[in-house]
């Protein structure tokens, strides 16, 4: 990228300032930070979002967006690992290489992907493993996300399985490595390569070129990205251009060290006693977020208030979403949408209530999945050093006037 061409307007991004001034001790998980403002400058193909970094771009979706099953492309969060992202990709010449332990190394162009393979569509939630990291005290390492490092889109593309089949995997192939077009500043820096164990390959894992009926936005991985429904987004490689089959797991920082949690039952540890044995974060746990109202919204007393939000899990399906307006003592079922977007998508929910008193009113939402797993209270979430997998019961506090 040519730095000279950059828009040189210096601005102070109110939304992105260091946090973690809390003096709370370990194991006192709180609600994630929730009052950040969007930046006053928009990134390409995006509306203004909460902005943590421009190089690489790190953008969070504001809470108000989470009221429908699909997240608009221009409001969809952005998270890159490497700062050098191609700012132009020619769709007519772009291709993806399949190599390593294959019968025939091949390159497949975008056009071939769109015409020579079975086209599939699937709606799935894309969520960063560190979403809501600001809930963890002491402050866990990593970007201090609020609740908006997630989104849900209808993805269109081809099955990874079909593309691999065209190259023909050799018998000894056991791991599939993925690499995108983003690069570090120094050539010596290893690329952001992620791997999938071949036995985890399934029909739902797709190479997507379309998002909600449009080309992928550049910042969400144009022209092609990997979709792994049900899993956190750490392996959903953007601008994917290379796939390598290997026999052994490669030695990779981003696989060995990053996106890992303690390999024990509670998936927890303490800062003084970090757990040595770790595992990848992989499947998303059950979660729900209130999109409307937000904290600070003023609502009319004795007038119907329609609470809206979204719920999801790692693909077992949402059984129910419940709302509490008395601090979590009494819970009532919310209405769920018809679920037609499938089990990897958001379920949008609504709940109508009539505030009875003026003053502050706290609204909480809790999702339960088909496995019977339900969200814990924020304070009951146990700490891990990476601040991953937060799924505490969400709450907003409105003012009834």
């Amino acid at each position, binding site marked *: *990228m040519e*730095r000279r*061409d*950059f*828009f*040189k*307007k*210096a*601005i*102070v*991004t109110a939304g*992105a*300032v*260091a*946090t*973690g*001034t809390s003096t709370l001790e370990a194991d006192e998980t709180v609600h994630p930070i929730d009052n950040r403002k969007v*930046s006053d*400058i928009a*990134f*390409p*193909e995006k509306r203004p979002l909460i*902005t*943590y*970094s*421009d*190089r*690489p*771009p*790190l953008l969070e979706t504001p809470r108000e967006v989470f009221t429908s099953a699909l997240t608009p492309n221009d409001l969809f969060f952005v998270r890159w690992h490497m*700062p050098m*992202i*191609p*700012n*132009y*990709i020619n*769709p007519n010449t772009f291709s993806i290489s399949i190599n390593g332990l294959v019968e025939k190394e091949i390159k497949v162009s975008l056009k071939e992907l*769109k015409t020579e393979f079975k086209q599939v569509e699937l709606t799935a939630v894309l969520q960063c493993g560190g979403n809501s990291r600001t809930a963890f005290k*002491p*402050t*866990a*390492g*990593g*970007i*201090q996300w609020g609740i908006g490092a997630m989104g849900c889109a209808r993805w269109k593309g081809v099955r990874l399985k079909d593309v691999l089949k065209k190259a023909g995997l050799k018998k000894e192939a056991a791991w599939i490595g993925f690499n995108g077009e983003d690069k*570090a*500043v*120094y050539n010596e*820096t*290893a690329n952001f390569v992620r791997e999938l164990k071949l036995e985890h390959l399934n029909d739902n894992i797709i190479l997507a070129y379309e998002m909600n*009926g*449009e*080309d992928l*936005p*550049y*910042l969400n991985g*144009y*022209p092609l990205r990997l979709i792994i429904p049900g899993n956190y987004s750490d392996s959903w490689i953007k601008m994917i251009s290379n796939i390598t089959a290997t026999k052994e797991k490669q030695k990779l*920082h981003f696989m060995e*060290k990053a996106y890992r949690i303690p390999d024990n039952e509670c998936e927890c540890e303490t800062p003084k006693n970090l757990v040595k044995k770790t595992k990848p974060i992989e499947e998303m746990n059950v979660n729900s977020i209130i999109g409307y109202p937000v904290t600070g919204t003023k609502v009319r007393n004795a007038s119907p208030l329609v609470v809206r939000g979204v719920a999801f899990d790692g693909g077992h399906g949402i059984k129910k979403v419940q709302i509490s307006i008395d601090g979590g003592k009494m819970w009532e079922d919310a209405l769920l949408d018809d679920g037609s977007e499938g089990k990897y998508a958001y379920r949008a929910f609504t709940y109508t209530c009539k505030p009875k008193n003026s003053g502050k009113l706290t609204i909480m939402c809790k999702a339960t999945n088909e496995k019977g797993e339900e969200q814990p209270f924020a304070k009951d979430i146990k700490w891990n050093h990476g601040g991953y997998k937060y799924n505490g019961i969400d709450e907003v506090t409105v003012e009834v006037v």
Partner: protein
Amino acid sequence: MKKLLFVVLFMSTTLFAQVNGGITVPYIDFPMKEGKGMYSTRGKCNMCHSWGYTLNQGLQSKKFWREKVMKMIVVFKAPIKTQEDIDTVVNYLFENYGNGKLE
């Protein structure tokens, strides 16, 4: 109805790029706190990534910042060569973006 049909057809065939000729990512200034070692730290960290990436790690312990700096050197090959340079960056980070705890 005809109009609606047209819109539907149009939508189902939008396989061309929404952006012709690529994008330009805006430059956003994330001001650094004034302090000893700021210029040295700026040169060593901001060459590769924005200051936002650093400051949005939250306020952290000295051990955390030292480990981050070492990770940048060992894993990401940041050209921070001498112990003196490492100490300058770690001290700047801890003094300005620290939580007051050594570890």
